[in-house]
């Protein structure tokens, strides 16, 4: 009765607060002892609609956040929900970004990836890390969480936008190269790169870190149904490892050998969708 090690029945809890981050991004706040580590995800059930994976954007032990981009039916239904409505939570699931005491970290975020990276940064500061926080976006209004991150003492925020409307003009990968060089100039070094964002971006980030000989961890986000290593929907070619169990956070050394990473993902029926291909 007591040990609940294997209980993954959704727990329904009320939305405590909704914070608008941008036009199509909201942060949902829940009062619940989730016990997530940065990089872990939950399955969020929108009753009557669907249940989808979302990274934990923050967890202080009594409250946690999910930062969600409205991209389709499930997220759209969520955006119509109000404070006090019930959603279901399963999790936390998956691996996490492991932070060592005193690390000098580069966190590279794209899109909603800024949210879980914010959680990483907050935890890293507790472990006396130096944090370079890189956000890449197409333009200014797509930059997320920059105020919250700016509020973290000890974090150097670097922003890039493709159109130059904010920060560095160009790709976040170029910005990363710059940051690595800058740090080296100070006779310091980046110990680890953590990245979360679109798969192609993470691939390029990973490759840069690889070439620079820096350990890099990426979030392998594949189609997930069970989140608990049963359905096989998230198995990644060509090793068949499960993104929901051995991931989502995995070492890029390993990920770069995966034949599918940066090339395709799969839909709910297991059919391949190549990146860039129209759905």
């Amino acid at each position, binding site marked *: 009765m007591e040990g609940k090690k294997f209980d993954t029945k959704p727990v329904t809890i009320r939305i405590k607060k909704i914070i608008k981050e941008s036009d199509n991004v909201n942060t949902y706040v829940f009062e619940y002892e989730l016990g997530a580590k940065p990089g872990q995800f939950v399955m969020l059930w929108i009753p009557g609609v669907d249940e989808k994976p979302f990274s934990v954007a923050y967890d202080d032990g009594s409250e946690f956040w999910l930062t969600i981009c409205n991209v389709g039916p499930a997220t759209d239904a969520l955006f119509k929900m109000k404070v006090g409505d019930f959603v279901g939570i399963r999790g936390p699931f998956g691996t996490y970004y492991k932070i060592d005491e005193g690390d000098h970290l580069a966190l590279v975020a794209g899109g909603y990836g800024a949210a879980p990276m914010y959680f990483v940064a907050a935890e890293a500061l507790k472990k006396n890390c130096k944090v370079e926080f890189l956000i890449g976006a197409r333009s200014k209004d797509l930059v997320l969480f920059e105020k919250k991150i700016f509020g973290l003492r000890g974090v150097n925020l670097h922003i890039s936008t493709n159109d130059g409307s904010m920060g560095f003009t160009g790709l976040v990968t170029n910005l990363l190269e710059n940051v690595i060089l800058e740090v080296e100039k100070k006779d310091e070094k980046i110990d680890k790169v953590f990245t979360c964002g679109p798969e192609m971006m993470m691939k390029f980030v990973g490759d840069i870190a690889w070439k620079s000989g820096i350990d890099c961890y990426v979030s392998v986000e594949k189609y997930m149904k069970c989140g608990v290593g049963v*359905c096989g929907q998230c*198995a990644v070619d060509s090793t068949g490892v499960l993104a929901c169990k051995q991931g989502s956070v995995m070492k890029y050394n390993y990920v770069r050998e995966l034949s599918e990473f940066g090339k395709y993902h799969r839909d709910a029926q297991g059919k391949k969708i190549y990146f860039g291909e129209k759905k």
Partner: protein
Amino acid sequence: MVNLGIKFCGVEFANPTVLASGILGVTASSLKNVIRNGAGGVTTKSIWLEEHKGHRNPTMFGTENYFINAVGLSDAGLEKAVSETFPEYNDGKPAPIIASIVAGKIDDFGLLAEKISECDPDIIEVNISCPNVENEFGKPFACVSGDAAKVTSVVRAHTKKPIIIKLSPNVSNIGEIAKACMDAGADGFCAVNTFGPGLVIDVNTRMPILTNKVGGVSGPGIHPLAVKCVYDVFKATGAPIIGTGGVMTGEDVVEMMMAGARLVGMGTMVYYRGVEGFKKVVSEIEEWCEKNGVKNLEEIIGTVKM
């Protein structure tokens, strides 16, 4: 030295553990990963003729005692199996593979069997027993012995591969149904599919948790029920059986085999013990054999003293 090898419908398995259908069976790389983790063989997720959308999530979850699912047999269809899953699996094929097929119309089973045979699976498993299809086509074929036999004979007419029928436990006469399938040309059975369906309600929203409302129940809580089904099928037919249902440990495997199973299927086990659980289970079987002086697993099949 213990010999864990088992011959099933003429096919050699290095050990009696088989991945059950619907678990970790979406891609060839996943199936190979299961073999790498110790399984003696794998079963594909049930394959439809055409792409088949499953139910929306939540489609499954587990508790300490059971697992419940209503995936709704999502699948990309025969085309993916033919063009991707089988060629990739057969390239450096590590162990026997069982092709699970499913259809809503009896004739489709024939066409599927024919086409999938060209992929050269070792065995074809005919899934007539998913308890979640109730709303789509009424009762599953597995619950009416006439239907079960009809599906069997259609499949028989379309393939030379060994065929096994995946039976439903949700009947009061599983032995009778198995007998009817044998008479119609089945070579063996996989017993059993999930139980129920069951219903789990979220008391806060008063909604069933699964989008399909109800789901098939598997896992440790139903294990003794599955063992009894296997015994009934064995007694009624003497046919080779993949005993499946709540098997979690090497001892459970041994028990299933004593009840009459030649091979033992595991699905929900990976929820509790991970995919690496196969390795653990196999070494538990080995240990038990050594301790009990069993040299060849064949010796124990159907030996329960009833």
